């Protein structure tokens, strides 16, 4: 705890400040709500507090493409960091069809 607390206190503050920044930007970027990356981040934060172990593995699993078959063609060279089909429970509840 002595070795790692301050480092991770700073990381939690970074995360808090990032979410505040997203909130402030909403007026200019109305589509930030529903962004699959933000949804996956919120899902990961919830997972951190569920009391279960293997958090790092489960966060990576949560952000992974769950499909198993090769895709027809690569749409780009890079990666976004989250699966674009991810939706939180709250997002799914708000779906109309």
């Amino acid at each position: 705890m002595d070795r790692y607390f301050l480092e991770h206190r700073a990381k939690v503050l970074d995360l808090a400040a990032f979410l505040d920044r997203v909130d402030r930007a909403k007026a200019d970027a109305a589509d930030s709500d529903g962004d699959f990356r933000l949804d996956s981040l919120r899902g990961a934060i919830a997972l951190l507090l569920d009391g279960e172990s293997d958090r790092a593995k489960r966060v990576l699993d949560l952000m992974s493409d769950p499909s198993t078959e090769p895709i027809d063609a690569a749409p780009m060279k890079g990666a976004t960091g989250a699966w674009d089909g991810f939706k939180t429970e709250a997002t799914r509840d708000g779906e109309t069809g």
Partner: protein
Amino acid sequence: MYIDPHVHMVSRTTDDYQRMALAGCVAITEPAFWAGYDRSSPKGFHDYFSVLTDTEPKRAAQYGIAHHTWLCINPKEAEDPVFAREVIDIIPEFLECESVLGIGEIGLNKNSRNELEILEAHLQLAADHDQMVLVHTPHLEDKRKGTRLIMDAIKNHGVLDPNRVLIDHVEEHTVRDVLDRGYWAGMTLYPDTKCTPQRAADIFEMHGTDRLWINSAGDWGPSDPLAVPKCRDEMRRRGHLEATIRKVSFDNPLEFLSQTGRFRTDVQPTR
């Protein structure tokens, strides 16, 4: 004393060689990779392979670092299979070079059918020439799926011994599968997009130190050519034995790479 078994020195300065040597690096291996842009012809790859087999060993030797390489066309340039096969056709002429350890880093990037076709062509090339293999696994959200597709492709190919294949860039969600299937596994130490030195130390504590190594994969993106000594330092601060630290940063790469019969750690500085 340590080995960095995956670093792209063609993208780094000579100062990095000097800093790595000062930190205790005695040997490296440099897999062929995507340069940040698509080459316009197979001749561009011929020039690149010449740099990897001739220029870089000389740069490294100035600082007493033994340089080795792996050859391939990276999956990021495999979406055009005709072009990729033209590049694969020029690889055999370089396999006689004494610093070439095998075929790599092959694998998948976005997990497409064309990438898979070219991965299978590389596996056949390795089998035809009795070469060892270094595998790149995809980035971020594509890693878990791609790692499984790659291991299935190797298994279905049926010729390569898993003990002669290293699957790189494992993280918490892929390391167990890779080790359980009998492969060697590499952890890449990146500031943002792969393992940090702290998480790599965690993975050693959770999964053991057999058939597992660490590398910097230093290249033209956010990366740190001194990441391996930083992970060694992290393990030392946690109280790991020097023998354990040596195992993951020297003995394990030495054991795997010595299967090639070409790996060495005894280069004398030439400057």
